[in-house]
């Protein structure tokens, strides 16, 4: 496996600057060589190093089984790492777990709600668990119910909520104790497009609030692209590449040409690599993908070259590159949206 590549956009902050100037003090999450082995055969997280600066939205993007939930579980003190270490807000997740717990809010991948309770009771119980005084709880509940638009349903049992409403309530619960770091594990899993949009709207509003850093996981590349300031692409328990979505996508060229075909691709790929306008060539299991300066301009030329090299094209398309293409480039596999 290649070492993770760091990229940063020229427009935004420089990653190295943050690292050096602040000497990690401004980082909310630091993981060093984090490993989780569930059993002899299952190595869920395989040596992850990440540094997440304060006040940004960070996305862990990866396919099913990549190790996203395991990462979150370790960072939120739910499970202990097998090796390596991690700090959240400067506190070690194992030795200072209680300090970490005081500062984080979490929503889990599965719906976890006591369905016999009403929405209001769920939030109130959560606040009590953290020792919030009554007046504080009451104010916070009113504020959060308004944020996630559940005021009308607040006194109904959660069992009667729709999936989207439950998710929104969970988000409110995660925010109940005014966390400094919020972890959302696949917050839009299983939601219809409309609910997905509204969840991200709330999060976007929150982002405007000062002092909240956010780490979320997803296997929807558009979510990572649109919501995150930085993305870490994770596969088989390793971060394969990390950077701002802009920078990650930019390195793929202006346009992506995707080719599905048959025959010996070797000569064809070699030809392509030699072309001046081709910035990247990625050969996946069934696709060849080119990053080029202009898709529409180069399409005809690519088709001609394929014929010359004896490669039969079944399908060819031009698109703006996405994080999915980045994923393909670094793993050789497609990141399938569910």
């Amino acid at each position, binding site marked *: 496996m290649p070492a993770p590549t760091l990229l940063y956009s020229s427009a935004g902050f420089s990653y190295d600057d943050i690292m050096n100037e602040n000497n990690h003090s401004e980082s909310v999450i630091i993981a060093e060589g984090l490993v989780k082995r569930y059993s002899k055969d299952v190595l869920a997280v395989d040596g992850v190093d990440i540094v997440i600066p304060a006040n940004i939205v960070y996305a862990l993007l990866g396919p099913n089984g990549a190790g996203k939930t395991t990462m979150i579980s370790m960072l939120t003190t*739910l499970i202990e790492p097998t090796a390596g270490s991690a700090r959240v807000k400067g506190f070690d997740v194992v030795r200072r777990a209680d300090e970490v717990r005081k500062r984080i809010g979490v929503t889990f991948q599965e719906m976890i709600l*006591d369905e016999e309770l009403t929405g209001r009771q769920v939030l109130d119980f959560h606040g009590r668990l953290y020792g919030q005084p009554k007046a504080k709880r009451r104010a916070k509940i009113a504020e959060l119910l308004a944020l996630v638009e559940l005021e009308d349903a607040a006194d109904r049992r959660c069992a009667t909520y729709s999936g989207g409403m439950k998710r929104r309530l969970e988000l409110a619960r995660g925010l109940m104790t005014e966390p400094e770091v919020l972890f959302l594990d696949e917050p839009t899993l299983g939601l219809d497009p409309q609910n997905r949009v509204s969840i991200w709207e709330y999060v976007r509003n929150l982002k405007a609030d000062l002092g909240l850093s956010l780490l979320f996981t997803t296997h929807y590349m558009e979510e990572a692209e649109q919501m995150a300031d930085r993305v870490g692409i994770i596969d088989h328990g390793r971060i394969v590449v990390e950077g701002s979505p802009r920078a990650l996508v930019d390195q793929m060229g202006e346009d992506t040409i995707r080719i599905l075909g048959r025959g010996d691709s070797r000569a064809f790929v070699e030809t392509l690599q030699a072309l001046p306008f081709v910035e990247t060539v990625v050969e996946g299991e069934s696709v060849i993908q080119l990053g080029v300066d202009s898709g529409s301009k180069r399409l005809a030329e690519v088709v001609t070259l394929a014929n010359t090299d004896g490669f039969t094209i079944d399908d060819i398309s031009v698109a703006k590159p996405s994080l999915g293409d980045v994923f393909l480039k670094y793993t050789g596999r497609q990141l399938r949206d569910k």
Partner: protein
Amino acid sequence: MRAAITIWHKHMTKLRLHPEEAVGLLIQPIMWVVLFGVGMRGLIGQGMGIEEEAYMAFMVPGIIALTALGAAIAGGVVWLSERLQGIVKEYLVAPIARLSILVGNAMSIVTKSVFQAVIIFIVGALMGAQVSLNPLGWLGGLVLVAGYGAGFAGIALAGASKSNDIGAYHMLIFLFNLPLLFLSNALYPLEMLPRWMEIGARLNPTSYVVDGLRQMVFENGAELAGGETLSLGLCFVVVAAFAVLGMGAAYMVFRKTVQ
């Protein structure tokens, strides 16, 4: 402690939301007393050569112990389902002591047991058991019930922390349940038991809670135990030790599953 009370409070809230469960908690002990009392007192009472009222006083503590067992088993199911549903994760990422999660659950169980014990006393008294007039005895009785409830709650919570489905849990609990009831003085006086069962009964905390209740809560309850009674001090010591051991076991098992 605050967290334990919060979790206890949540369980009590749920109980309020489910009147049917509360009614069940009420009806079940009444049924035990009535069925056991009416059905068995002629049979066993005559065999023991004691009067019917006296038999009630003899029997009621055993029913209390049995009901406390039932409450603990049900409480274990609550805990198991919170684990299986993942609700436990909400507790685990909160800044609270691991032990307080279990203590909260045990408190709910103990509350229900004590509540049921009070009902059983009342029904037993209505059916003719002569209740002691010493309130300190009642208090002592409730302390014993609470301690016994906590001990068995610990066993149930340990079982529920280890099992990954409800069937396995019931199998595990079943293994404790029957001997705790039958290998005791709950149904027969100690001296009526065969030798090997008497030894088992003397090792069983149930015998101590039952005997303590007979002595403290009922008039002439002590004589009814068949002449030989366990010392009251010993009853408290054994029940306290049982409570600590039970909760300790639950904590050990739970801690392992969290890793």
